[in-house]
């Protein structure tokens, strides 16, 4: 079995590109191929038109931030950051200047002479970033660098990473299995599964116009409905729901649906209403999240549907468990999927 199967993707200069997928989908393998730790059995890796696939890692203008950081424990923070420049044979004073710049960039000036074992996880993360950025690579690879940090620190580092990418103008290729991270940070992202790239696009594209079921399911909360789909003139389609109601829907690229198909509706693009709506059902569960409330509805056709509604301060969600309600789907909410 191949870890990667016929993967082809174009990553633009200076963009924050994310490889998103569950563990074992091949995203780390793809990263290791670009870094040069593994070599492809066939195919090319082009960097500014030059095929770097046969080059050893130390000849590629590409640096990596490792998941485990992989900081050298026998060196100080400053020595770690300067290592790459030193190996490139840069003169000593140039290395010193650059190390100072990098320390400033990641706000670690005060800890320059600490051993890497004497600093916290978040600080190690910053040093790993500075070390990889110091030689000014053409591409920076980040292998789930935030997964070891706690929630708050991770949020901070997400913003920090965006800032660094913006300030340095280096192309970032970021690997994660965290869909929220992928959506908030990326200019564009690729969703991967079982060694294949399923969809490439901006976070908006991926979230609002998923091309297939896996993508829609992996990213965000999702409602899947089965509907009879009919294409209409001028793009789009009409979807006939199990209740007999017809709603407009967009269609995934390169898809010509006929008859039964799966459509996707995001929970925040539907409302619960008193009365019938598009789909009738009974409220099964109400889950409060602070900012939002998720209302789980058991549909009369047997399916389940989740509606997310924003909370107001004065009132509750306005519905009760066991209440007969209808679900109203917004006009531009439905998308027909490849199955």
């Amino acid at each position: 079995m191949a870890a990667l199967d016929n993967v082809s993707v174009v990553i633009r200069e200076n963009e924050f590109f994310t490889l998103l997928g569950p563990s074992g989908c091949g995203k780390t393998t793809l990263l290791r191929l670009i870094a040069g730790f593994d070599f492809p059995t066939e195919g090319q890796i082009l960097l500014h038109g030059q095929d770097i696939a046969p080059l050893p890692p130390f000849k590629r203008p590409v640096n990596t931030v490792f998941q485990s950081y992989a900081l050298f424990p026998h060196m100080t923070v400053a020595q770690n950051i300067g290592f790459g420049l030193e190996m490139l044979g840069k003169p000593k004073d140039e290395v010193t200047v650059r190390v100072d710049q990098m320390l400033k960039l990641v706000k670690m000036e005060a800890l320059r002479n600490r051993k890497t074992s004497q600093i916290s996880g978040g600080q190690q993360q910053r040093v790993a970033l500075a070390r990889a950025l110091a030689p000014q690579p053409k591409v920076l690879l980040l292998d789930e660098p935030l997964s070891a940090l706690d929630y708050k620190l991770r949020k901070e580092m997400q913003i920090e990473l965006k800032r660094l990418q913006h300030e340095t103008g280096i192309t970032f290729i970021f690997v994660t299995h965290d869909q929220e991270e992928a959506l908030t940070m990326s200019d564009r992202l690729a969703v991967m599964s079982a060694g294949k790239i399923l969809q490439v696009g901006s976070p908006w594209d991926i979230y609002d116009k998923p091309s297939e079921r896996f993508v829609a399911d992996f990213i965000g909360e999702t409602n899947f409905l089965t509907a009879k789909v009919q294409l209409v003139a001028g793009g789009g389609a009409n979807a006939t729901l199990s209740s007999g109601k017809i709603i407009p829907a967009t269609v995934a690229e390169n898809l010509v649906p006929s008859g039964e198909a799966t459509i996707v509706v995001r929970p925040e693009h539907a409302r619960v209403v008193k009365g019938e709506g598009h789909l009738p059902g009974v409220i099964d569960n109400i889950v409060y999240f602070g900012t939002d409330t998720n209302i789980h509805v058991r549909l009369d056709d047997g399916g389940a549907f989740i509606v997310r509604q924003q909370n107001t301060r004065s009132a509750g969600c306005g519905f009760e468990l066991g209440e007969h309600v209808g679900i109203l789907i917004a006009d531009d909410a439905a998308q027909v999927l490849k199955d």
Partner: protein
Amino acid sequence: MTTAAEIAARAEREDVRKRWLLSTPALVIIFLAGIGPLLVVVLYSFLTPGPYGDVKWEFSTDAWVGVFLQRDMFDDTLGIADAHLSIFLRSVRLSFATTILTLIFGFPTAYFIATRPERTQALWLFVITIPFWTNLLIRTFAVQEVIRNEGILNNALIWLGVTSTPIQILYTDWAIGIGMVYVYLPLMVLPLYASMEKLDFRLVEAGYDLYATRFKVLTRIIIPLVKPGIIAGSILVFIPSLGAYVTPRVLGGGRQMMLGNLIELQFGAGRNWPLGAALALTLTIIVTVALLFYVRYAAQSEQRHG
């Protein structure tokens, strides 16, 4: 009335007494097997040799003087003990060479084993330790069989036309060196392996990623990180090498003596137990001093790196 503090204090005393009691067997063994014999050796080194070996119970510093100096046979003046000095220097030289050579051969071996898949590592370690199962004497005679003038090595060299007459290896320092490297190699490989096995190979990848060539990765990342193994291996090889007895005895003949043989000689044919004791203690002191310097140096260079 007893206060809580008094009860606690009594329990504490009880506890301490029990701990001493429990460690008694270990302490007895340390005293009987370790410190005791050493004290006997110190005592003997200050006595007078008996006529048929053994010692006479008369205080004398002759043995200690005899370690470094010798009385001239004719005019009775004291001069440097050349024989002892050359044996001492040979021991240090050969032990040093053995340590360096086992490091050179052992390092790639240990690296090879440490980079095998986990299951095969055990097999390789097993192969490395097999020689330990054979008696040292037999292994040494096996080496002799290989390097003697009519042995496998010389026959092969003659057959290949490298030389027309056998090269005299046996009964030279070379023979002792070959034998000691062979015997002590596992003692170098095992601690090296132990520290390499703990090595995080992602650091090696990080090195390559940061433009380090293979050689730079070796000198800047792998060697500093496995230094504890290098130090442990060097100590484990150097110390027994200094006191080696069987290898120089069999492969060096009687002529190329090392400290171990010199000491044995005093207790055997030499019938000078005090001198033997003094020589043995000298060896101990050399080893201790060498160790102290080595460990201190290693710790210092560690700090420099850090």
